[in-house]
């Protein structure tokens, strides 16, 4: 099953490679990983999207907790949560094709952030699944580049991951 795991870790050189190394060394899946410092610059917040059986997910949580630099771990998928991913897509589109692209972009609540004579770049923020369906809704042959950040997640309401 797909899980979205959130963690707080020391914002130190090497901390990211400890997490990435753990996943590769133990053969865990990693679909995406997003990380950046928080309002407290000594802490980084990471969101990992992974998949595996319940036993594997339990081990992933425990192994992450075991890393000395990791201060807190929460499996967001165990409760109500929100996830968002940012995607930038550059598309080759002129004339009617560009009009159609803009129409689809509107439906997905995306924005055109750059246009040239033959290209058009769209910004979209949504769940990973929504971003996937956007890509399916436009002509694949027109896509020049796709840049995705990986999901960032947060608990709903009072569900907070904090030290």
């Amino acid at each position, binding site marked *: 099953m797909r899980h979205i795991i959130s963690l707080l*870790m*020391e914002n130190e*050189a*090497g901390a990211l*490679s*400890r997490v990435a*190394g753990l996943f590769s*060394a133990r053969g865990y899946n990693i679909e995406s990983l997003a990380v950046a410092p928080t309002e407290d610059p000594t802490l980084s917040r990471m969101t990992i999207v992974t998949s595996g059986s319940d*036993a594997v997910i*339990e*081990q992933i949580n*425990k*192994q992450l*907790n*075991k890393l*000395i*630099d*990791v*201060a*807190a771990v929460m499996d967001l998928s165990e409760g109500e949560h929100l996830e968002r991913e940012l995607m930038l897509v550059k598309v080759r589109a002129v004339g009617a094709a560009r009009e159609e692209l803009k129409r689809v972009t509107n439906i997905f609540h995306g924005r055109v952030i750059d246009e040239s004579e033959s290209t058009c770049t769209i910004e979209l923020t949504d769940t990973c699944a929504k971003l996937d369906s956007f890509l399916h809704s436009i002509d694949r042959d027109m896509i020049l580049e796709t840049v995705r950040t990986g999901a960032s997640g947060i608990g709903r309401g009072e569900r907070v991951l904090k*030290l």
Partner: protein
Amino acid sequence: MELTGAEIAIRCLQEEGVEYIFGYPGGAVLHIYDALFQQDKVKHILVRHEQAAIHAADGYARSSEKVGVALVTSGPGITNAVTGIATAYMDSTPMVVISGQVPSYAIGEDAFQEVDAVGITRPCVKHNFLIKDVKDIAPTIKKAFYLAKSGRPGPVLVDIPKDISNHKTEFIYPGSVSIRSYNPVGKGDSAQIKRAVQLLLEAKRPMIYSGGGVVLSGASAQLTELVRVLGFPCTSTLMGLGAFPASDKQFVGMPGMHGTYEACMAMQYCDVLLAVGARFDDRVVGNVEHFAQVPRKIIHIDIDPSSIAKRVKVDVPVVGDLKLVLEQLLSELRSSKQMPDASDLAAWWKQVDEWRVKGGGLRYKNSTEIIKPQFVIEKLYEITGGDAFVTSDVGQHQMWAAQYYKFNKPRRWINSGGLGTMGFGLPAAMGVQLINPGATVACVTGEGSIQMNIQELSTCKQFHLPIKVVSLNNRYLGMVRQWQEFFHGNRYSESYMDALPDFVKLAEAYGHIGIRIDKPSDVEPALKEAFARKNDLVFMDFQTDPTENVFPMVPGGKGLSEVILSEDL
């Protein structure tokens, strides 16, 4: 007064009460060696290979309750040390390794003897640090010791660039340490303890399975008391041997690949299994699906939550320091004023004893013609009064030592269980002998393994370490040969040890005494003579039966009840 980083590093070791460190110098650690030279509190043992420095620190730590410390240079110094570090990591030895690094301004430029020490060791240390500022040396070393010995112990590496070891700052050793992202647990959850006790009381076919964690947490007395109070059979993993006395009648031997028949069967058919500081390793439970076919309740106590429910499903997990948790269990048991049903337990013991008879105990066909390796270990046990520190290398000799030397005390059996590192035995024995001066230390080895760190005979000479090397020389990489005999149609691919040196002359060349023993009747006299020489290292080269195999055996991937006895083949 301001001190250099190197002086600070050594002062930190003094503050930690470190008596011995094991190491090897080189360019990146010259300042540290200079600081070492100018004091005499921390004594340095110069090994002949960095791998040996780590194993020696490991043996030192395992046979005492101290943190082992090693010092190596950058590049090849630290890469040579990696096998030792991984060995310590797999067996959870508390250890601090200080490595030199190229100057901080040269890092990343492929400087002479530069390797990414922190990167290379990351998967086999509990934690590691690259020092970036001289002010960080003292607090980092403080943290390193704290991390190494608290929680589930393990090796911690501190990598110090050469320029930083020469920068100066005020020396302040922190009195305490706290790491917000690291909070090892102490006591176990009391509700879980109650559930555990309930299960133990209701058990009809109970079994206690003890592991290396019991030794590490110093919980041997608590475990022994619990086993005696409950009256249950007790088995111990390779790493846990000695935590419960092997000569006790409640002890059923080791389980697993080369465990006893009764331990394998009792593990398989018990209805409640109390696992204490053990991790259901593949060498212990064999095939986990096969193990899961028999329904049983499992209580698992460990300080490391990730060891629990990793390979088998657990009904009552208890996370905590074993010593404290076992005390909680004992007091809960006493206050319950109940005992397990005596007739159920008697019936179970009857079954276990039947298995004991069927398995026939550990046995081998002795001979008057050729030396049987098991016979050597039995005699070793007798002659040392069962009270020696025994280190071992890896192979058949290791299994025979574990089977036939009855360890009655913890920290007496020192071997590389998790990583299975050939070359561990002799350097580990050096660490053991240093921290236990005057004690009898034997290194049980094979002609293959001993050659992996044979150069340490020189270190032993320099530091007057009267280790007794018991080499079971079968002219084969015996454990490999055994697998080839059983599973590869007797095709002995590269397992014959040709062109062996004359070990007697070799020992003599290093300034020690060597004895070659060819006949069974000479085994006992040779051991007696060797162990009588309290101040000498004696290398005993026993010419043993090359065809002997280790039994019982649960073949890799098989279930515990599929254990093979010697006559099955």
